[in-house]
């Protein structure tokens, strides 16, 4: 028992001094104290910005988020058309969804009071269902310095520009295992890219196999949709990466190189054992014209379905543009051969140096087979359409590439001008640099307008190709020496298009230049060659702007004829051709198994 002290009796009365001070109480408790500026209150979603990737749904540990279709919003490339709906009977306001939001569309307001007697009200789609806090300016946002997503790509090891210039060795080395895992783990598995990929490859699926180091499964996934994985892993135009949701805030995933990484891990001789394709013959025959990516892809898928496939190729080797149009420093032959060899190993019969229309008649193919697929590609270079373009020192880009690929000397000389801004122009320029020429690239518009891959442009710049932009060639003249040629070109000014199209270059007559080169490489586009088609079939095929109109499954109005590749699609790249081949196979299978289109 404590001793009683007078101090202990009197001191507690000090409590009364508080009654002379201002009370602690808030007068208007509900309005007086809004949430702090970064309070994690109710969600706000900018549905214009949101692409419906569903990463918020994935990270939510409370299963509070559903991705739901929204009125007036449809799925399109790069946007699933779904939007997150929150269940406020589940949400715990941890804001992980805000932190991980790939587009930064999701944020939180500082509103926090929501009271109702109907518990089913607590489900809402922010941005769609109007809520009083939609316009609150304050509230939690992800700190810009803090990200749960990995926005940076591991640096790809590449040959330096100097090293590259000395050889035709592959420039890109491919990921190291550590890099591959780091890169693969950046994927959020939203599946948005699948729609973008023309072949609709299971991209998140095979990226996952890299994380799990299960390359065999990866290869199986790749070969479900794309028999040219090794090739596409190198030269694909990777439109999937443009729509990768990570690209909204950072660098998109290097999907292409991850694909390459998988195929690089598996030697060609193990393909058969891993993929274990079992073919049940169905006795039907399909002829394929052109052993490019489109043709071989169709051959692969048709073969898997049990068709007897014969491919007719005019060149010595299969691969088409992949072999003759793409230089080996981008796509080494062995990588291409790896893919082609596997396709051929399935029992596809291929007839080299057999040009349809010369060695064999299209009509024969048409009659002997149950269906015909052709993807002959664009192999006729377009002319410059200026005076003097028939000068012998004016070469076509394709020709140069083809010569180099066939180990012939293209004879370009030491000082070369390349006209054009597409991939062919870049390739031609870089090839010329490698065989020791000085290269100047002339292009009508600006660099950002160039249709070539940005990486290619960058690499061309690094390899010291001289870029002369906004240069419109006017006239090609003979030079003093036979080995030279003179070009007259004028500077152009970019004029904004009134109709909102892209700006158009207008020649400035007073700023003309004249240069002389050893040769001029024209690489401004290609067209197809359909001379092998019999007239009656040609009549049946509809074409628009030089491209054939085909159905969803590459079928033409002649039910037996299927067309794919550059001559049928607008994008004119390898992966589209592969996709066309695949779809044609589906279409042919549908038609034939339904008993349509038989002889």
């Amino acid at each position, binding site marked *: 028992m404590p001793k009683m002290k007078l101090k202990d009796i009197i001191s507690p009365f000090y409590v009364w001094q508080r*009654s002379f001070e201002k*009370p602690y109480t808030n007068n208007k408790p509900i309005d007086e104290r809004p949430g702090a500026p970064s309070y994690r209150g109710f969600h706000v979603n900018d549905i214009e910005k949101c692409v419906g990737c569903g990463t918020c749904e994935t990270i939510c540990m409370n299963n509070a988020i559903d991705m739901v279709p929204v009125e007036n919003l449809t799925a399109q490339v790069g946007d699933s058309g779904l939007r997150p709906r929150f269940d406020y009977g589940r949400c715990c306001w941890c804001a992980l969804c805000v932190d991980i939001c790939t587009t930064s569309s999701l944020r939180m307001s500082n509103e926090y009071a929501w009271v109702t007697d109907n518990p089913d009200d607590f489900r809402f789609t922010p941005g769609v269902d109007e809520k009083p806090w939609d316009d609150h300016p304050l509230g939690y946002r992800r700190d810009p310095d803090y990200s749960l997503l990995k926005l940076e790509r591991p640096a790809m090891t590449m040959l330096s520009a100097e090293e590259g210039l000395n050889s035709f060795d592959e420039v890109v080395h491919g990921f190291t295992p550590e890099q591959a895992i780091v890169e693969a783990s950046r994927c959020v598995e939203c599946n948005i890219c699948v729609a973008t990929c023309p072949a609709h490859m299971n991209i998140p699926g095979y990226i996952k196999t890299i994380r799990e180091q299960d390359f065999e499964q990866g290869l199986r996934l790749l070969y479900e949709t794309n028999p040219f994985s090794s090739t596409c892993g190198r030269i694909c135009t990777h439109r999937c990466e443009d729509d990768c949701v990570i690209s909204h805030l950072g660098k998109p995933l290097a999907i292409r190189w991850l694909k390459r990484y998988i195929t690089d891990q598996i030697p060609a001789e193990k393909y058969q054992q891993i993929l274990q394709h079992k073919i049940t013959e169905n006795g039907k025959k399909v002829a394929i014209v052109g052993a490019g990516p489109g043709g071989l892809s169709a051959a692969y898928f048709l073969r898997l379905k049990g068709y007897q496939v014969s491919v007719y190729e005019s060149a010595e080797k299969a691969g088409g543009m992949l072999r003759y149009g793409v230089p080996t420093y981008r796509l080494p032959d062995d990588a291409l051969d790896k893919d082609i060899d596997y396709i051929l190993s399935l029992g596809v019969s291929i007839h080299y140096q057999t040009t349809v229309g010369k060695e064999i008649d299209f009509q024969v193919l048409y009659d002997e087979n149950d269906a015909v697929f052709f993807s002959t590609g664009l192999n006729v270079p377009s002319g410059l359409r200026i005076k003097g373009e028939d000068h012998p020192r004016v070469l076509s880009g394709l020709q140069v590439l083809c010569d180099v690929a066939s180990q012939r000397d293209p004879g370009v000389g030491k000082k070369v001008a390349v006209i054009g801004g597409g991939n062919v122009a870049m390739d031609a320029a870089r090839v010329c640099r490698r065989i020791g020429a000085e290269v100047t690239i002339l292009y009508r518009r600006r660099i950002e307008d160039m249709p070539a891959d940005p990486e290619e442009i960058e690499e061309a710049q690094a390899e010291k190709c001289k870029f002369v932009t906004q240069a419109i060639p006017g006239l090609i003249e003979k030079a003093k020496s036979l080995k030279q040629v003179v070009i007259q070109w004028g500077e152009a000014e970019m004029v904004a298009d009134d109709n909102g199209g892209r700006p158009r270059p207008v020649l400035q007559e007073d700023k003309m230049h004249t240069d002389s080169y050893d040769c001029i490489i024209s690489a401004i586009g290609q067209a197809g060659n359909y001379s092998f088609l019999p007239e009656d079939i040609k009549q049946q095929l509809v074409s628009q702007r030089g491209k054939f109109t085909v159905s969803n499954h590459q079928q033409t109005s002649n039910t037996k004829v299927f067309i794919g590749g550059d001559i049928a699609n607008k994008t004119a790249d390898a992966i589209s051709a592969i996709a066309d081949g695949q779809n044609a196979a589906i279409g042919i299978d549908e038609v034939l198994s339904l008993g349509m289109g038989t002889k």
Partner: protein
Amino acid sequence: MEYWITKIAYYLLTVSIVMVYGLLLSAVIAKTMARVQGRVGIPLYQPFIDIMKNFGNRTAISHGIMFYLGPVFRLAGGLGTLAFIPVIYGSEMFSNFHFAGDILLVMYFIFFGQLGMALGAGEGGHPYSAIGIARGLAQMTSYEVPFALAVIAVVVQYDTASISQIVAAQQGGFMNWTVFTNPFAVAAAMLAFLGMTGYAPFDVVMAPNEIPIGPATEFHSSYLSLMQINRAIFAGAKLVLFMNLFFGGAGNLIELVAKTWAIYMIPVIVGVAFPRFRVEQSVRFFLKIPTLIGVLAIFYVQYIVLK
């Protein structure tokens, strides 16, 4: 007969006034305590609403006949206490049923309600009620000692057992109030009053963190409102009694309000400053200093005042 009817009518009027006043006072006190706690506190009408609400509850369950009677006894205790205390000195209207020995009856009635409550709460069957009642009775018996001593001192001092005569004896200036003529008796009585009002440190009966609500744990709805009404009346009666015995009574309503408020503030001032005693500490406290002072008061009266 007419005399009694008037008397009863006047009494009922007094009861209602004291009840309303008691409720208002409790709200004022609650607000005062809230102020010390740094807040606004309940509105003044809150006690009335609480009572009405409890009356308006749709269900009420009973644990037996004594459970019914508990609050009734309690209220009877309050009403009885008030019945024999003249509220305003000199006013026929507010003099109630005072008679020569009324103080003894009042002392009895102060006990009565508590006992009735004990029966009711016991029937409720809740252990906290039982503990609370045990505590309440223990504490009451202990604070009754100094209080009784103080009353005895006053009775001896004024040589009467009638409250109105005690008040009358204190008229004629504040120096005639018992508080100045016999401070020991008042000290003992006020210490007992601390226990009677049930504020800390003597809130062992209700003791929210020990035996929440105590005896009233099982009471609800109209039972509870009866008890709340009684609390107001009983508090009023006690205040008036103390005012009459020790602070010279009240000649008019204003004086009544001022004095009773001031008396009520004393336990409040102590109450917010101290935690709660344990019950045996409380008993020990009352049986020590206040009792000594009470004894002293009698001696003081006997040997100094009356000399």
